[in-house]
């Protein structure tokens, strides 16, 4: 009750609603958010019989510890031996570490002409202000080419394991689809959607910034791509697959990866070939510090970024519902 407002006006204020919520008179979720009571789990009689049978067989034949001496011995000694083994390994490694060169000492073996050249001539050789980017995309570009193929092959392995291809023989019925929780979409969550509405553009713009500035400031294709991928996953979580499928499907993924990686392969083949034959590539290095500089590093960073972003998103979508 308020002294300044009438009863009717007071009921409209936020303070009144707050008070009711505080006293537990009103649940703000009711009729706003859908909450279904869970059905009790009922098992098919035939399936249950089969499961119990399997369990029995498993316990009798394989995990029958009392009569299976092999398993008994294995269980007993396994813990004992593994503890001893790990302790011994740790002791050996710790002992070994104490003989390694001290950290940060100027006379260490790894402070040699290799690191010196990277630091002194890195900018002049590669045109990249960021020495790390210059190292991974120019000095040791072959390793990075392999590394981006590691990402590619990892996605392919996940596709093998998780992709659900439409199989004509076993056409799933609607009820089975209902049961399949992979097809469930999350319910619209207003808080998440509002936050994502502001955050996703910022995240993606920041990711693009990190990729494009990879040769100037800390960052590059791998980190920027991971940021963009995280932004895409947030968008997917907030708005569901229907929205993301308008611009990103398996086909898009396939072509982006293909174009980015084949550009990477072709560009590097050209540059390796020229390098090995001591030819000029004809790609200008530009002024160090400009966005458009450092020769091939910027386009390669963009390629790596695209591949990483798509890989992150594809992993998430695969684990979520076996396709996107």
């Amino acid at each position, binding site marked *: 009750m308020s002294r300044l407002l009438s009863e009717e006006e007071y009921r409209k204020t936020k303070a009144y609603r707050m008070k009711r919520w505080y006293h537990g008179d009103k649940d703000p979720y009711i009729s706003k958010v859908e909450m279904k009571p869970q059905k009790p789990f009922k098992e098919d009689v035939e399936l249950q019989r089969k499961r119990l049978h399997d369990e029995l067989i498993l316990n009798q034949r394989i995990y029958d510890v009392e009569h299976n001496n092999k398993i008994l011995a294995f269980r007993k000694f396994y813990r004992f031996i593994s503890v001893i083994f790990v302790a011994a390994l740790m002791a050996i490694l710790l002992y070994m570490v104490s*003989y390694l060169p001290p950290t940060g000492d100027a006379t260490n073996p790894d402070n040699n002409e290799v690191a010196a050249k990277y630091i002194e001539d890195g900018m002049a050789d590669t045109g990249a202000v960021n020495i790390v980017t210059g190292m991974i995309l120019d*000095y040791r570009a072959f390793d990075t080419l392999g590394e981006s193929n590691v990402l590619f092959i990892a996605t*392919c392995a996940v596709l093998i394991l998780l992709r659900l291809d439409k199989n004509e023989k076993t056409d799933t019925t609607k009820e089975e689809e209902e049961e399949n929780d992979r097809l469930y979409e999350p319910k619209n969550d207003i808080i998440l959607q509002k936050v994502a509405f502001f955050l996703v553009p910022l995240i993606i713009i920041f990711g693009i910034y990190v990729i494009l500035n990879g040769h100037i400031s800390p960052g590059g294709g791998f980190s920027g791509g991971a940021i963009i991928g995280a932004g895409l996953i947030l968008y997917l979580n907030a708005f569901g697959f229907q929205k993301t499928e308008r611009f990103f499907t398996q086909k898009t993924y396939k072509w982006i990866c293909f174009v980015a990686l084949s550009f990477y392969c072709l560009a590097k083949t050209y540059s390796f070939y020229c390098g*090995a034959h001591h030819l000029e590539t004809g790609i200008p290095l530009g002024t160090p510090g400009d966005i458009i500089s450092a020769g091939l590093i910027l386009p390669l960073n963009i390629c790596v970024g695209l591949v990483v972003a798509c890989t992150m998103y594809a992993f998430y979508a695969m684990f979520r519902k076996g396709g996107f």
Partner: protein
Amino acid sequence: MTFIENFPFFSILLSLGSGVLTSIMNKKAARIWNTLIMLVIGSLSFVLLVYLLGTGESFTFMMGHFPAPWGNEIRAGALEAGMALFFVMIMFLSLKGGEQHLDEEIEESKINLYYIMINLLLSSLLALIYTNDLFTAYVFVEINTIAACGLIMIRQNGRTIEAATRYMIMAQLGSGLLLMGLCILYDITGHLLMSNIKESVALVYAEGTYNIPLIASIAMICVGLAIKSALYPFHTWLPNAYGNATVSSAAILSSLVSKGYIFLLIKIFYRVVGFDIIVDSKIINILFVFGLLGMIMGSVNAIQENDIRRMIAFSSVAQIGYIYMGFGLGTTMGMVASVFHILSHASSKSLLFIAASGLTDVSGHSKKFEKLTGSGFRNPIAGLAFSIGACSMVGLPLFSGFISKLLFAQAAVQLSLSKLLPTMICLAISTVLNAIYFMKTVLRIYTPVKGNREKIEMPNKGKYTFTLVCMIVINMILGCCSQPIVDWIESGLAIFG
């Protein structure tokens, strides 16, 4: 610099790029493209081998604009070129021999993924063979591991998924140990390029400043690669993976993937640490003991098996044991025998896997021994090929296994009694055990069954027969004209260091 010196670089980039290209192809195009790529890489390697045998030297190839300690580098000698040629040949034959099973066992829409794995696996094997840089080797070891995992689990049933999980856990442990070893090696030498590390290691070893980290890193690298190539106590991932994967995968995994890691280990012995230091460090004695154990225990396990594919898989454990035993002898002769055994085992094991798949096909797709009775009559070519593979494994003259056993024995007799005796005794025991389980199988497939003796016609038989004949020919060439091959290995190892 002649044009031929570009060939290692072309081979690696070609297979890497075709992996990417295959991702947009359908099944048929992917298969044709893969065949084409293998033929091209095979002929490139052959030309390179002939050229390098002519010059008798090795060369390095700069990957990029920066010379070696700063940029990447690959290196090719006669041994590398020959290995590349051999690996491509075996991979090609294994794929052709298992094509029928591939179509039956793998979902139609995932076959192009299989060829992506194959292309990238080939590129990683080539990179492991040619690389002159330890970190490049590690990157391609990663590709190799994931590709092998994909090859196991592409036939999707519970057993292969379980096998792939086991493989992944063990292989990651191996990769982790390898990486730690490389880090320590970098810490005490400051280099990643093989030839530079070798110089620094010689210096460090002579001064004795970092001896303990050096020994620890060599040990970690050895154990890591031994886990990945299934040396005896670390072999637990192997039987399920080889026994349940589709037959091409099993043949490729047993004859190429594990051999790629072993070749990398040889490379590390010769080109990174230096063979004298390895011998001096006594680490090879441990490899020797585990190799001997593997020779015996692998065969004992194989005798107990009731499943033909798992039996062949356990036989691989024994054969990997032979290779590590050859390392353990600590002489160049032993190393030559090991390298020869890599070739011999790769050719016989892929032959056995492909032939066994033909035998199980005519026995109601059962891998159990009871069902296989008389299958040699039902599928004569597979029966013949299996018998030849078995003879080669046991070590009968005319076949490649005989030569490798002979080389091991020759290498052992030059040593002191402490190594001669165990080697000879284990060789003898292992040969007898091999004979027990292989001859048991051969006798069984040629035991006639009453009533049912008609041949069963297989679809697509021409390609299968062609593959088996090619593999038999390779095996016989290794067994009958071994002298030029041994000479090639010796000269290759001589310029390796």
